[in-house]
């Protein structure tokens, strides 16, 4: 198993992940980051707002940043007049 940390940066500031997650591959950590962003956005939508300026930084056990996942990467927005 691999250990990754998913640090959140968004409108309320930084939320460091002190515990991390055990996953079988980096792809699982990335999938978890995407799911987390969608979960956070969906909670915000219920309060009538969408803020895509956040990001999750995936770090390894040495805390070195492996990948940055911007919130916008987790959703596909279709606005009026777009197909």
């Amino acid at each position, binding site marked *: 198993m691999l250990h990754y940390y*998913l640090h*959140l940066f968004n409108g*309320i500031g930084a*939320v460091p*992940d002190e*515990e991390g*997650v*055990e996953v079988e591959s980096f792809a699982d950590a990335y999938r*978890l*980051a995407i*799911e*987390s*962003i969608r*979960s*956070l956005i969906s*909670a915000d939508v*219920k309060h009538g707002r969408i803020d895509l300026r956040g990001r*999750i930084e995936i770090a390894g056990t040495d805390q070195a940043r492996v990948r940055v996942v911007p919130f916008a990467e987790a959703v596909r927005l279709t606005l009026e007049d777009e197909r």
Partner: protein
Amino acid sequence: MIDRHLAKLRARHPVTAEEEQAIRAAITELRDYPADRTFIKRGVTLDHSTLLLDGIMCRYKDLRNGQRQITELHVAGDFADLHSFTLKHLDHEVMTLTPCRVAIIPHERLHRLTEEWPRLARLYWFATNLDAAIHREWELSLGRRDARAKLAALLCELQIRLQIVGLADERGYALPLTQTDLAECLGLTNVHVNRTLRELREENLVEFQLGQVTIIDLPNLRRAAEFDSAYLYLPEYKQM
């Protein structure tokens, strides 16, 4: 050995010394399980029920993609699967979340217990009804509470359930679970749990760190959850 179980029963009903002895006599074996062990699998025929003496375990169901929903947490003193006495196999799994010590009560002994001690039969019927009440409260959380309220509700519920068995007070309790465990209870991701814990901490309601829940403001934590302990059927908590 079963003091926490007796404390749980006696929080709601009296249990006589003879009834206590009958419960003790029904136990045939003690077992120790490591953390993260699914020791009851759905569909497998069961000939005994498991009484949790120490540790935390959960009932869960999952999907083919690996997503798991924990449907109830069990603390020391709970039967993990009293319902298997009548159902004989379960539609869900039961897994340890921490190292657990359990007592085994064969269904044949439970059968005899319920025949010879009909009042205990009613107490155990009550216990399965209590599990159903907890499931209904979790359903409310999963369906209607937002992340902040459902996390607050879970922490309030555990404070009372653990206090009954002497493992919590109004200032907090040990909860050796991960944020992933909490996420699987609440239908969230661990990042979302982490953010929500931060919100609750910044509101000076509660902290969860290194397996320890520190309650800063219990009345307002309950208010944040719209927590009503009536579903736990404890006379002394009716006004809380």
